[in-house]
């Protein structure tokens, strides 16, 4: 999963084109991570030393690790450590990008270090993200000064897990400015109790139908009652699991029935709300979350304005 995040970072910073990222993400599924990439990633070797070993490999029938030990570049312990790192998630993308000649190992490593710096990640947290720890990824993305920041993080983290569990395992999320969102389809649900909140999925029709089809386990081509029920039920299921988690921590909450709006504009209170863009292989949609349900306005373009 880290590959999706770091891949989008490379894309957003102009280091890869969208087409190159797609190729690299496709290729990484069948990529065998080579020792050179691991060694540089671990900081055991410089890219120049890797090149030197590669040159030697052309002349001798020896493995990368053996030559590196012979040259005194690596210890046997480091080689053993690298063997166990070979299945590390983020390295598949690195190897794919290098194999496709989109970036050198050095460029990839520099970008990785820059990514780590920008997101102010400690080594411990970075290790967690590299291993695909969703909680750590979400925590690194959400920065609010709201007293309920922990609840935001838990909610979004659980949402990503439920997307992976029920909809699509290729998820990339980013926080976006929450204020006004226009949605072709908006599925919302209000939660009442000690810590009330309002939550919604906003999507265009194509993505709405994709989510609906996957969750309903059948191909849905029209945004009819069944498709609407499918996306609604996914949100309801997710909120239900969140309520159980909160209940186990001593906070009892209740859900109201979900609401579906077509062609609507949502206005949320900026200080108390969060908008996450959820990118999946099915397309992009928005997750909206507000701690002040009373300030959420949903305007139906076909009808009069109404408050949710």
């Amino acid at each position, binding site marked *: 999963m880290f590959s999706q995040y770091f891949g989008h970072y490379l894309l957003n910073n102009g280091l890869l084109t969208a087409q190159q990222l797609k190729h690299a993400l496709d290729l990484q599924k069948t990529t065998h991570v080579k020792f050179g990439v691991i060694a540089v990633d671990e900081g055991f070797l410089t890219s120049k030393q890797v090149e030197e070993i590669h040159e030697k490999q052309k002349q001798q029938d020896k493995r990368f690790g053996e030559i590196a030990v012979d040259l005194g570049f690596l210890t046997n312990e480091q080689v053993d450590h690298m063997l166990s790192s070979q299945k590390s998630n983020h390295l598949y993308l690195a190897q794919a990008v290098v194999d496709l000649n989109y970036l050198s190992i050095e460029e990839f490593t520099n970008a990785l270090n820059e990514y780590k710096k920008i997101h102010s990640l400690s080594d411990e947290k970075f290790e967690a993200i590299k291993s695909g720890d969703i909680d750590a990824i979400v925590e690194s993305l959400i920065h609010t000064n709201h007293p309920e920041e922990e609840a935001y993080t838990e909610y979004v983290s659980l949402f990503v897990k439920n997307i992976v569990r029920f909809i699509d395992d290729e998820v990339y999320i980013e926080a976006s400015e929450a204020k006004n969102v226009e949605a072709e389809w908006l599925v919302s649900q209000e939660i009442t109790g000690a810590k009330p909140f309002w939550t919604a999925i906003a999507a265009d029709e194509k993505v709405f139908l994709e989510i609906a089809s996957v969750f*309903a386990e059948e191909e849905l081509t029209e945004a009819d009652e*069944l498709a609407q029920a499918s996306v*609604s039920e996914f949100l309801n*299921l997710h909120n*239900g699991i969140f*309520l*159980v988690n909160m209940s*186990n921590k001593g906070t*009892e909450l209740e859900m109201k*029935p979900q609401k579906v709006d077509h062609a609507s504009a949502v206005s949320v209170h900026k200080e108390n709300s969060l908008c996450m863009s959820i990118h999946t292989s099915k397309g992009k949609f928005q997750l909206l979350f507000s701690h002040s349900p009373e300030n959420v306005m949903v305007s139906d373009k076909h009808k009069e304005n109404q408050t949710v």
Partner: protein
Amino acid sequence: MMQKQLNVLICDDSVLIRKKLKNILEVCKCHSIEEAEDGIAAIQKAKEMKPDLIFMDIVMPGKDGIEALEEIMNENPALKVVMASSAGTQSHLKQALDLGAYDFIQKPITLEAVTAIIEKIIKEEKGVSANV
């Protein structure tokens, strides 16, 4: 002896859940399967069809599943009502069991969970008829 086939009422405001649960119940060879979209419809249908078993959602518009459970149990305390909700919180569970619910299943509803409930009911009913 032929195994008893159950009459089942599904009460859920989601057309998707009703459809999925109906498919599962058909696999379980239930005799008659009827549907209700909310608590009020469920109370009415329960009187008309006299089901052996009801699957009842909790969060529904109008009369919710807990209110409907209370009325149905007042009318027929022997009826088996299984609450099915995505929010299986401790308070919901306690409330439902206090009101006489037979069981509680956490959504998403699976074939295994439904089969286990039906087998349990059939086994219990066999026990009752053997003792008569």
